Structure formats: C-alpha cells, structure tokens
C-alpha cells in the first residue's frame, strides 16, 4: 500500500466538515505542535522532511522558512499561494475543495512555526466556490478554538484570511501575489530584497504553495525523518500529480516520488494508459511552462534507464533530454495532437498573461505568438523556426520574474524535439491548415 500523506481520507463522506475531519485524526497535529513543540522544533522537522516547494520551483521549504527575518516589533506573515493558474495543473483546486481543513491545519502549524499572527490564503478569484468552502471551514475551526485568540489556551493568536484574486496567472509568482494582496496590479517585484526580508507590507513574509503547507500536519504527527523516508533521494515524500490530456483516467493522484513515469502513465491505479486505439506521442510533465518531451524521452533517460517521477530524474540531461517536475501538471498527447498548434496555444496563454513590465517578455511573447500563429495558419516563412529560437533565447533569463522563461521553454523545447513538424507546416501550408492535420513523418510513438 503506497503511503498517502495528503489524500488518505479524501473519500470519506463529509471530510470537508470539521467534525468528520476531526474524527479522522484531524487537528491532532495542531494540538501536538502548539502544546508540545517550540516553533524552532517544527521548523527543524520540516527541514528534516526535505519537502520541496510544490508550487513548481522545488525550493526546500524548511530552508525558505529559516531565511525569515525576525526583527523585534515587526509583524511576520505567512501567505499561502493558492493562485494555481498553470495550464495542466489543478491539484490545489482538488485539495482545497475536498480537504479544506487539511490546508487550514497546515496554515495554523506553519503560522505558529513562523511566528505569524495574521496569515492569508490567496486563492484565484475564479474559484469563488472554493473560497466559500474555505471560509466555512475557517469559521468552524474558529468556533472550535483552533483559530482566533488564545488557540487551545496557549496564548497564541492567529487570524486566517482568504483573499480572492482577480484572475491573473502572474499572481502565482510570489512577489506579484504580494503586490496583488496589497491591492495593486500583479507586477512582480525585483529581488532582492526577498519576501523573507521585505514581503507583504514590507514585513518579513513566507509564501508557500497549498500542497507544501498541507504536508506539515503529517510531518508534525509522524516526524520529518518519516517523511524523508518516503520518496527517493532528495525528492522526498509524495506529490500530487494532475493528469490531463489523452489518457484513460484523467484526475489528481498522490504518488510516492520515485515511481517510474511509465507506470504512472500505464498502470490502472493511475492514468490507465493512453486512450484506446492511440499511441503516446509527447508529455508536458510539470505544467505548461516546462519543456515538452517526446514519448521515448519521457519514459527513458538518455542512458536507457527508466525515467522516474522525481525532481532529479525528470530533469536528467538538462533541457537537451529532460524537463522539470514543476507543479506536477502532466499533460499527455497522443498521435492526433499537433505540436505546432499546441505550442501556439501555450504561447497565446503566455502573451495574454504577461504583466507587461519587462520588454523582453511583453514584446517577445507577442512575437512568438504571432510567428507561431502564421506557421500554424499556413503563412510560415522559411526563416521562422530560427526566428522563434532566437526570440525565445532573448526572453529567457532576461526578465524580473520567471514568466519569461515559462514562455520561452515550451517554444524552444517543441522546436528542439519536433522541428520537423514546424518545417512540415511551413512546407505544406495548405495541408497543414486542414482540420485535424498532424504531421506524421518522423514521429516516434510509444
């Protein structure tokens, strides 16, 4: 039986209510943390657990916590990033909708560990119904004495606020999120100073993803070492994977890190294979921003070994033959998918969502979209592929926040692995624009 750290009780009827959640052992971690542990001891357990940021960046959470500045007389804040807007990623949505109390329990433990008395959950505004679920759960936890003044008689106070966003992908970037939370446009800030020193209202702030914060209840109950014993190498614990696209069983799955990618795609317990009568063509493994891989590279490393679901294995070989685990947004493509059309679709997304602050991103995402549009619509020029590679290179690494990289990688990787498809579109403008047209020349299908 695989370890389930987050979703063990997710199918229990009524688990979204305080009483049922409590009956399943909920809030025992808050009791243990607040009554028997010091904040430093909790930070130590999280460090031992080795949890890496589940929003996509993969930065060790305990280390992020230990960077938090602690000047006297200045409030500190914990902000939960629940903006989840990356195409292919829908696990935080699933977690908050079904297990609101797990997130709230994690927020209480984390806020206590960080010395925050006011914490925020910034949820994308589209999920207004989830916001109501969270607000209801917060009211229940407050009524039971787990939130508010003098929690469990400990003298510790915590106010938890759910903040709705306004619909902008960029607000998932931590400093843009803080700007948005301050009532401004979601323009990312220059770093340094990092939020740990000057974050929300210029005060020391930690920003963590929903899934990362949700792990803390289990870590407090079972210990950091027990968490680190699950998973593989530096990819400790479990990960929620959002699986979508041409598979038999799309959905959200909690896996132990280290499972072979092939098993995850084909085993009945997870995706259940590519839809009947079709073959596996390509994979986006960590949400739309990470490099796309053709099927054979998605399943195996350059040395022929099986690729595993872990931060290290998925990035093996750098971007030449690897990708990133990112947010765990698995999008699977079968042979009916046109890589050019999909790349254009993603490019449109990044153009639309660029905040416009840095010229390489503001202008470059628009250029890439235009060039991809004309290739896809049968008006491509011979030099367009090289032009795209050139523009992508000029965006990557030249912007304040990683949205520039996120826009450049899908384009650069699609050309790296599927250049012949782009060339075919340019060479066969009339055929390529027919509905459902897909280049079937050099494809290696699995």
């Amino acid at each position, binding site marked *: 039986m695989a370890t389930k750290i987050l979703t063990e009780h997710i199918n229990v009827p009524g688990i979204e209510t305080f009483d049922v959640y409590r009956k399943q052992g909920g809030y025992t971690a808050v009791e243990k943390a607040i009554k028997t542990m010091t904040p430093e001891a909790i930070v130590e357990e999280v460090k031992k657990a080795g949890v890496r940021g589940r929003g996509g960046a993969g930065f060790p959470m305990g280390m992020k916590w230990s960077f938090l500045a602690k000047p006297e007389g200045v409030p500190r804040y914990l902000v939960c990033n629940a903006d989840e*807007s990356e195409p292919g990623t829908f696990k935080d949505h699933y977690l908050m909708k079904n297990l609101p109390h797990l997130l709230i329990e994690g927020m209480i433990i984390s806020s206590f560990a960080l010395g925050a008395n006011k914490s925020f959950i910034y949820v994308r505004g589209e999920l207004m119904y989830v916001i109501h679920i969270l607000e209801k759960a917060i009211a229940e936890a407050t009524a039971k004495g787990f939130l508010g003044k003098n929690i469990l008689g400990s003298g510790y106070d915590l106010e938890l606020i759910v903040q709705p966003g*306004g619909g902008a992908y960029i607000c998932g970037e931590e400093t843009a999120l803080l700007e948005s939370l301050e009532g401004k446009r979601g323009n990312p800030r220059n770093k340094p100073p990092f939020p740990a020193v000057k974050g929300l209202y210029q005060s020391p702030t930690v920003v963590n993803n929903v899934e990362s914060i949700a792990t803390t209840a289990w870590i407090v109950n079972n210990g950091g070492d027990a968490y680190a014993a699950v998973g593989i190498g530096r990819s400790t614990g479990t990960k929620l994977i959002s699986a*979508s696209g*041409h598979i038999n069983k799309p959905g959200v799955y909690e896996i132990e890190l280290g499972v072979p990618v092939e098993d995850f795609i084909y085993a009945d317990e997870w995706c259940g294979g590519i839809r009947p009568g079709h073959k596996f063509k390509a994979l986006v493994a960590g949400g739309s921003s990470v490099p796309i891989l053709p099927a054979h590279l998605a399943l195996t490393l350059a040395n022929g070994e099986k690729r595993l679901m872990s931060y290290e294995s998925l990035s093996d070989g750098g971007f030449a033959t690897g990708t990133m685990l990112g947010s765990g947004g698995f999008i699977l493509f079968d042979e009916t998918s046109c890589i050019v059309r999909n790349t254009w679709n993603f490019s449109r997304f990044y153009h639309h969502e660029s905040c416009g602050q840095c010229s390489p991103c503001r202008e470059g995402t628009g250029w890439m979209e235009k060039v991809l549009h004309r290739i896809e619509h049968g008006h491509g020029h011979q030099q367009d592929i090289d032009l795209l590679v050139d523009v992508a290179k000029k965006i990557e690494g030249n912007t304040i926040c990683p949205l520039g990289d996120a826009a450049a990688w899908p384009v650069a990787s699609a050309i790296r692995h599927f250049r012949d498809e782009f060339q075919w579109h340019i060479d066969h403008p009339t055929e390529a624009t027919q509905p459902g047209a897909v280049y079937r020349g050099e494809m290696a299908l699995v």
Partner: protein
Amino acid sequence: MTTETNKAVTFTPERVSKAQEIIARYPEGKQKSALLPLLHLLQEQEGWTSPEGMDYVARMLDIQPIEVYEVASFYTMYHLNPVGKHVIEYCRTGPCCLMGGEDVYAHLKQRLGIDTGQTTVDGRFTLKEVECLAACGMGPVFQIREKYYMHLTNERVDEIIDELSK
C-alpha cells in the same frame, strides 16, 4: 471604458457591512488590500465593474479613482463593460483544447449566434474566453458565475443553454 448610465452607485446595506468587515481584516493603513474583494462585491451587485462603482469603491477605501481603474483593468475577472445576464467564461487553453474544446466552443458560438466578447441581442448571454480554469482533467470546461460545467460536449452545451434560456 463605456459608461452606460451616470447614476451614482452605492452598496446595499448588507454589502456595506460586508465591505466594512473586509476592510477591517487588514492592518491599520493597509485598507487598499480590500480592493480586489470590494471589486468582486461591486460586480456581484451591479453585474459589471462600472466607473461609478469604482469611484464609490475608491471613496470607501480613501484612495484615488485611478488606483482602482488601473487595478480593475489588469485582472480579467472584472467586466469593464456591461454584460448579459449569464456570462459564459470558457477555457481556451491547451488541455481543454486537447479534449475537443475548440469544436465545442465553435458549437457554443454558433448556438448563441455571437462571437467571443459579445452579448446576445436579448441580453441573456455574454461569451468570454479565459486562460485555464484549473480543471484540466475535466475539460472542456466553462464557468458561469461560481458554477463549473465540465466534460462538455455539443449536446451538453445545448442542454445548458436551453436550461438557462427558460
């Protein structure tokens, strides 16, 4: 920004107390943080984010009207023009398109007789496209107010439109 009327906008008494409750959440002097929640409240009441409503929110938060306009125009959820009774926001991003979204949305447009960004003549439906609704495994998907409609097909779209047309 078009202005449909020049009537002054004020919140209903219930929304005034809700707004005050929201403003009180934030630390002293940081009341601007209430801007996004208040704009949601405004749109919920008025159906759209009207200039008069934004001016009202600015007064309520003691900030300049331009600070409200620049924020409202940055985020996609605020309708800066009047919209129909039902705003259908469909996800046009990769995973939904992989599941046949493009065909379903073409059918939706044909059925309503409007293109993205337009409102039906009877004022019942407005069509907007959005970038990813975080329901990729259940695509194609669209949202009407707080409700998600998932696994859409042409037939399902017809049923939903029939239901909302009653």
